[in-house]
């Protein structure tokens, strides 16, 4: 059994213990891929990375996209091992916010993992490159959440007269909310209930702003 050991920062800060972005112990998927990865040619690597990147951004990929790469030393088994290992590596790198994972540290970790130097550039481009914000925004969009308010249609009116009362002259608000899950909710409210809703929304906004200024959000990690 071969064990891949990740050593702490060779050229990094003296005395500072830093855990690699993959974690304290190298995950088995990554461990398994190191040897076949060293024998992989650059075009194949780029293609696999591209498929992984598309998958992460929600664009469904199929096996056909990778099939042409097969042949010779690159069997289905080897391809599977490399794909899984790379996928795991990339996802772990993307899990950390770009402010946390510095480029030098990332490169150091790749080196410690024995990822071939020729592949470093592409990996760095994905993790700290210009496309990173797009990936982050996609990951944020895919988080589990309650429905959002997609559209609000509303009406403010005055009830002049009803079947039971000749002179009503009462104002009201009617709303139709279309939620992101497709449901449509319609309802009415009195003016005082509307004021209450408005007050609550304003309060939460102000609380949110206070929260964002709070020191807990300023911690750099």
């Amino acid at each position, binding site marked *: 059994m071969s064990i891949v050991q990740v050593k702490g920062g060779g050229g990094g800060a003296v005395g500072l213990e830093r855990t690699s972005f993959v974690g304290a112990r190298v995950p088995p998927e990554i461990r398994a891929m190191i040897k076949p990865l060293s024998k992989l040619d650059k075009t194949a690597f780029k293609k696999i990375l591209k498929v992984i990147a598309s998958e992460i951004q929600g664009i469904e990929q199929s096996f056909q996209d990778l099939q042409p790469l097969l042949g010779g030393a690159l069997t289905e088994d080897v391809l599977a091992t490399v794909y899984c290992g790379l996928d795991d590596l990339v*996802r772990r790198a*993307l*899990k*950390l*916010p770009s402010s*946390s994972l510095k480029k030098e540290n990332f490169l150091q970790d790749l080196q410690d993992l024995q990822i071939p130097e020729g592949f470093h550039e592409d990996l760095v481009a994905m993790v700290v490159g210009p496309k990173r914000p797009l990936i982050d925004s996609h*990951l*944020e969009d*895919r*988080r*589990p*959440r*309650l*429905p*959002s*308010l997609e559209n*609000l249609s*509303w009406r*403010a*009116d*005055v*009830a002049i007269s*009803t079947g*039971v*009362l*000749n*002179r*009503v002259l*009462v*104002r*009201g*608000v*009617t*709303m139709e*909310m279309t*939620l992101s899950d497709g449901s449509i*909710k*319609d*309802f*009415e*409210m*009195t*003016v005082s*209930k*509307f004021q*209450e*809703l*408005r007050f*609550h*929304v*304003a309060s*939460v*906004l102000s*609380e*949110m702003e206070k*929260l*964002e200024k709070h020191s*807990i*959000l300023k911690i750099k*990690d």
Partner: protein
Amino acid sequence: MATTLFTASASIKKAVMLINDMDVNRFPLLLSRILQKLHLKEERTFSEEEEEKLQTAFGFSSNDLDLVLETLEFILQQAAYHTAKPAVLGEQLKQLEMNDDKVEKIVEAWTNGARNLVQKLKERTVHPNQLEEVKWRLNLQMAQASQSKVKRPNALFQLSVRDDSSGKKENIRLEFTHEELYEFYNQLETIQKQLDSLS
């Protein structure tokens, strides 16, 4: 010239005759119960049991009691619809040849109960779903499966909407990011401006 609240139809005339014969002492209680229930859409003013007791108390047949109750309800409904002044109501009841003692009691009940009743009627709407309650929660998302060290504020809102016709309550649950909430807030401000121009 004040609005005519009642036309002297045959059934009203008959009802007035029956009302005139009623014992005036129990009259006010009858009126106040009718006033209490007038704004409710579906509910009966008196239960079947109570109606039987009333029949005995006033010596009415079932049909006669129905006619009397219907007419009293109609009188008060009309008074409410036109938000009639007590004096006007009294005048017009006298024109229907109702006895003074009964007229006095009706006018008294109307004077005392009018404001409350009209207010309740004003609140009656046609749209069944009414927003009853707003609850919220402010969260700070710390992580998710695909991202760590997130620190993302989000607000959860629960709007309780009651269906007047079925009595069912629905909780609409929404989530807002800061931007989404700010957008919602701006929409509410626009609505407020409209409301201000309507007052």
